[in-house]
């Protein structure tokens, strides 16, 4: 993995953000909503609206508006929310923090569960445990978040009263309370990935365990434990890294639903309410941030892969 490879990947991130920015800006420009009306509300007089439009540069040509916006974004200024009249950046980034807490915990849970499940299924292939894992994963990939979320709230929170049903407390304020309120959302957010990744791990590991070098390792008299963990797992998990990184995209989507249902003030919810309120600056910034997160995660994954798997020669 050479410096130029890393350079290339970084360049790619910027290209990605560029494309996304154009896309988002384009879409938000055509959205059926008048920013000025959004801002002033239904009681605004025509001249007040016109004044604001000129002030917001809504009468400039699109490309000029894009330039203004983009240059702002580059300097970390995402404009002001039409809904709250407050700067978008700070609000969204604190929201992002919340979402990342959720996402990271979900990822962690996923890894803790999915990988062992996959290994179990692969090792005891065709046995009961394999079937069980397979069944679970089929269910898992087939339940949309909003269904799992509703079920979770009804059962765990309402009927059994084990956990708080919703709401969010920053971990910094109240660690235990915050965690309690995160348990359900995290579980819901990770279900789909657990199902998917455990399947991936299984199939990868099954393939690996049929390779010559595993046979060789066995015939060298190594203990089954060492064969599995030192020789098998390593190679099986390599491709899983990429899978997980790609799934992060899905996770970010799922988080939108989870945050909506569990009233978590994350970036997903900001986006939802922004979309409902046609709060263009927030939509634009939100999508940009999500895309950035996704690309960075995948960038990290690629580096990790390249670092772990010395075989690949990057230009």
């Amino acid at each position, binding site marked *: 993995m050479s410096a*130029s490879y890393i*350079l*290339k990947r970084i*360049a790619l991130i910027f290209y990605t953000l560029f494309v996304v920015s154009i896309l988002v800006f384009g879409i938000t420009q055509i959205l059926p909503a008048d920013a000025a009306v959004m801002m002033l509300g239904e009681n605004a007089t025509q001249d007040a609206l016109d004044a604001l439009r000129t002030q917001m540069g809504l009468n400039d040509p699109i490309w000029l508006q894009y330039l203004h916006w983009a240059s702002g974004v580059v300097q970390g200024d995402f404009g002001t929310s039409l809904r709250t009249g407050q700067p978008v950046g700070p609000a969204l980034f604190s929201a992002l923090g919340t979402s990342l807490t959720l996402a990271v915990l979900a990822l962690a849970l996923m890894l803790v569960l999915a990988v062992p499940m996959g290994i179990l299924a692969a090792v005891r292939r065709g046995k009961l445990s394999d079937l069980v894992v397979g069944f679970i994963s089929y269910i898992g990939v087939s339940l949309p978040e909003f269904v799992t979320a509703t079920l979770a709230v009804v059962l765990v929170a309402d009927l059994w009263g084990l956990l708080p049903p919703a709401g969010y407390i920053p971990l910094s304020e109240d660690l235990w309370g915050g965690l309690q309120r995160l348990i359900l959302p995290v579980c819901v957010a990770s279900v789909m990935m657990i199902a998917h990744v455990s399947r991936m791990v299984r199939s990868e590991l099954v393939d690996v365990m049929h*390779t*010559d*070098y595993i*046979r*060789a*390792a*066995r*015939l*060298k*008299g*190594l*203990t*089954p434990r*060492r064969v599995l963990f*030192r*020789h098998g797992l*390593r*190679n099986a998990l*390599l491709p899983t890294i990429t899978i997980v990184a790609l799934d992060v995209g899905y996770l970010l989507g799922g988080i939108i639903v989870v945050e909506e249902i569990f009233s978590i003030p994350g970036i997903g919810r900001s986006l939802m309410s922004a979309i409902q309120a046609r709060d263009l600056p927030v939509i634009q910034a939100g999508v940009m941030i999500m895309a950035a997160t996704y690309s960075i995660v995948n960038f990290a994954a690629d580096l990790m892969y390249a670092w*772990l*798997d*010395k*075989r690949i020669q990057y*230009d």
Partner: protein
Amino acid sequence: MTETNTVLRVENYSLAYEVKAGAVQVLNGINLAIRRGEILGLVGESGSGKSSMASAIMRHLAGNARENDGRIWLGETDLRTQSERQMSEIRGSRVSMVFQDPATSLNPTLRLGEQLAEVLIRHQKLTPAQAWAEGEARLAHVGLKTPREMMQRMPHEVSGGEKQRVVIATAFACNPELIIFDEPTTALDVITARQILDLFGALQQETGVASLYISHDLALLSQTADRVAVLQKGVIVEEGETAQLFRAPQHAYTKALIAAAPQPQRLLVQPLDAAAKPLVSVRDVTVNYGRKPLLDSLLRRDFAPVVGSRAVTLDLRPGEVLGIVGESGSGKSTLAKAMTGLNRFEGLIEFDGKPVRGLSDMDAEYRRDVQIIFQHPDASLNPRQRISEILARPVKLYGKGQGTTRERIVAMLERVRLPASYIDRYPHELSGGEKQRIAIARAFLSNPRLVICDEITSALDVSVQASVIELLMELHRDTGAAYVFITHDINLVRQIAHRIAVMYRGDLVEIADAERITDADRAPYTRQLLEAVTPPASTHSA
């Protein structure tokens, strides 16, 4: 043979695999014995069950394996009665194994050192530090120049030969009583293979370990093994002292095998009149791979393309068979691809006087006249097309001649000795040899004047190979088409080629008449190559 120094004794051992259809017998009443310091060669074609034998001894059998009550003794230990735990103690320490392809038998993500040391740690109970040191010694011992660095390397960072040396070092690491060699040189280039064989010989002499040497290559066994057992469809049809067995083979199958092995002396082509003007002349044909990456051009970095083949020049007369030999990566296939318009190339190819400077110049006529047959028949036949469609294409494209398409396909099937009923089958319903015959049929259906055979027999068994070659030569006689025969099997090519071109790292080393290839004034690389080749079995004299 006295009981005392018998290392491996297999007594009336039978093995079958349970499948939906029922039980498939792979080994039947096997009796084998290997003494200390002895090398037993086990020869057989694919499906003969020779690998299953190895697995059986290693007690590493698939779940659906069904064994009879036959016994397998390692010294005084009855391996059949050993628990999996006990076996894992025995494997690697008392009996170890060397595999066919070092590229796949080494874990790609672990350092060579670790893969060697782990055995010592497991069986010799060494500390990692000790094991590492010991490992270095072992690597030095198998003739690796820089053992310390080797220990640190990843498999992909070293050559095939070096890998196999590491594997061998691992096999010998715990001074086992028995080592099973499963085609240890098949995946290697001729010269490397020779070096590995020499190494094996030396170590064998030194340690006096008993060896079971599994191979499909009679010639090779005739040189390495003390005794040879011939395995056919799970039955040992003949066993004996190597010299004995090769001088006077008893069993028909053994005879067939020996006969099938290519023998340079027995030429299969008639001489050619040297006068005729060339059908094809290749002039300074160079093939480069790779495109300058965008980033590089942005950063103004200069970019060195990978050279496939460099300024190759050669002629081919009508009806001539030109052999091209060389290691993998020597550029022989690249040249073939260029001549069939599968690669961009620089330079000039003149076909029947017509200049061809690039793909655009390869008109329908050229396409018809020049056909190529690939190494792997199952890759070169579209899995979703029936034989009928596969063979119909050339007829549809260049179908001069009488008879309906189907008639001509059937006729061609007969010529390649396949039943007409195959016409409605899918490729995956045919055996490897049969598939290759289909590929040949496809090539000849357009009545080509030049056929390029790219390693077409290397994926096939000895006997199958022989019959395919026979077929090829027959077609050569009938059609008078010229062949470019690309192979790494020098014995074979000496048999069927008028002239032999030797390639090395993309360069054409030299071209020589087949019968003069052994002359002393050949280029050094050519001589090296020929020395590396094991002379064919039957010429072996004890």
